[in-house]
């Protein structure tokens, strides 16, 4: 077993980045995720692994530094929180369009606008439906524990490089700020220039070698026919993700009459709500989507044949509920319960909402 530590979610992102052989982190301070860069600067990984850590002048610059380094075949990560992710949207669209791998961490806070520094899940639409311009998708991973903050850094990179597509870890101020025990990953060495040439030489812009054509990284294509083909290729990639990369977790679903659907920190609250409801004799299960894109449509469709209704619990005004409704179809009621503005719902509130919106109605 790896090293066991008690750490904050944000600190773990930094530690996992160093350990998984990241080449660089570029970022800009914003609450509630500043500990990511602070931890990195304190750890000084440039001496240990050669990892670059740079505080950029803005989130806009950070994401375009990510674009530049990723295009040269490097393993690079950035983190921010909701308003900062909005600023990064331009660069994220370019990275998706140019088909480059990277990991972006969004430690969500409440919005809109400057909003609040308290936790929220209100960036579900932004993360899973685009966020920037054009038809693109991010691979979106939603950790529900500090352990998963650790695990999803390397998982995010594996998926990002497999599909040459940006991956986002969509978390929030609860998981970013809370401390839990975590088993840290073993160190993976950074790739050497030779290994990058071997693995990514067909596309990486790290200097034209004598044995290959020059590489050009761009999302620009003035010929509409070719641009449509580029779009089709992207869509085929997203379809393959939907077929092969869906991750989810079920709790107490075998005999459930009602289903809670929740991701990230809301799913932790819902686990307790399942216990409370079962103490009251209500057979409730929980489905936790781990990948928000690709979305676990099939398991939700299967459970829609079993349960009498679903309650989607989110710290927002109702976003993932739309995807659950689409997956479940019209045969059963699919309702939403959410708190906003940085308010975290309690397990008791969830059970109350379940009784009012589904059982009582």
């Amino acid at each position, binding site marked *: 077993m790896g090293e066991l530590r008690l750490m904050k979610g944000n600190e773990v992102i930094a530690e996992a980045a160093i350990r998984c052989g990241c080449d660089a982190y570029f970022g800009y301070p914003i609450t509630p995720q500043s500990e990511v860069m602070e931890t990195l600067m304190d750890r000084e990984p440039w001496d240990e692994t050669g990892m670059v850590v740079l505080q950029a002048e*803005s989130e806009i610059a950070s994401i*375009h530094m990510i*674009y*530049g380094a990723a295009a040269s075949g490097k393993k690079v990560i950035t983190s921010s929180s909701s308003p900062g992710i909005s600023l990064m949207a331009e660069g994220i669209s370019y990275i998706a369009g140019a088909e480059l791998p990277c990991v972006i961490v969004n430690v969500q806070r409440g919005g809109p606008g400057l909003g609040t520094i308290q936790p929220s899940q209100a960036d579900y639409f932004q993360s899973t439906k685009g966020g920037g311009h054009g038809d693109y998708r991010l691979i979106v991973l939603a950790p529900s524990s500090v352990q998963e903050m650790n695990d999803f850094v390397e998982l995010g990179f594996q998926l990002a490089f497999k599909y040459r597509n940006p991956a986002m870890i969509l978390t929030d101020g609860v998981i970013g700020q809370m401390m839990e025990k975590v088993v840290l990953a073993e160190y993976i060495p950074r790739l050497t220039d030779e290994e990058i040439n071997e693995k990514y030489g067909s596309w990486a812009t*790290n*200097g034209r070698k004598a044995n290959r054509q*020059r590489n050009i990284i761009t999302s620009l294509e003035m010929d509409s026919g070719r641009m449509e083909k580029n779009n089709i290729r992207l869509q085929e990639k997203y379809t393959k993700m939907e077929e092969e990369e869906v991750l989810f977790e079920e709790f107490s679903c075998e005999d459930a009459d009602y289903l809670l659907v929740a991701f990230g920190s809301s799913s932790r609250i819902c686990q307790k709500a399942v216990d409370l409801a079962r103490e009251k004799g209500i057979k409730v299960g929980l489905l936790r989507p781990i990948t928000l894109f690709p979305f676990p449509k099939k398991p939700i469709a299967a459970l829609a044949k079993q349960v009498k209704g679903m309650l989607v619990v989110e710290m927002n005004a109702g976003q993932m509920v739309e995807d659950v409704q689409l997956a479940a179809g019209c045969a059963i009621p699919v309702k939403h319960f959410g708190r906003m503005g940085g308010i975290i719902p309690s397990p008791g509130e969830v059970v109350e909402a379940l009784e009012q919106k589904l059982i009582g109605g």
Partner: protein
Amino acid sequence: MELKDIINPNNLVYEKPKLLTENTMHYCPGCSHGVVHKLLAEVIEDLDIQDKTIGVSPVGCAVFAYNYIEIDWQEAAHGRAPAVATGIARTNPDKVVFTYQGDGDLASIGAAEILHACNRGENMVVIFVNNGIYGMTGGQMAPTTLIGQVTATTPNGRDVGRNGYPLKITELIAQLPGTSYVTRQSVHTPATIRKCKKALAKAFQAAIDKKGTSFVEVVSTCNMNWKMTPVKANEWMVDNMFPFYQPGDLKDSSKTDPESYTPLKN
């Protein structure tokens, strides 16, 4: 004498740089970009760094620069080339990285990125083609448009009250401690073309020697959007641009030594 006798390798006195591709350039006849591209290809070839040079092309007329020089290229979003180049340079310290940017890209939408990259002293070359106008979008006012200059968005001439002052961004860049070589050149005569090539070679050598940021402005013409013949555009540039954007070196030293700053007191 037949044509094949004239077009013969033995008679060769001048040729296209090997690193320039066979692609037909999209630039308008009379545009300065083609000359700057040629010089860039020659300098990279002369320094024998084509296998470790990565270019960053901008949004603007040079958006397709990657079609013309046989090296690895990345296309950046509008104004973000210095950030993109920072990402490449920081993670590839043994490579040579340059950005190629116009005045709208560098001095307007990308003003923050260029100032901070130069202030950090990123090890890279910046080629700044300043023709005082947005070329690709059809001749709108740029930050460097002169007072009184007619553009698509200043049809009666740039008015300071309405549009603010022309921005001498290169003078600002020269103030920054991270830059080592800052110069302003042009490519309108054989003599200035030779001088500009020397400046580019010096800038690239500085990047190879890890001296921080080198910045080469090329005051240029946009005869199409200036609505002049190429010859008239060159004259207009000399008469109007040069008095305001004076050619010559603005800085030729090295990055500021951090030891020169007064240490913090407890």
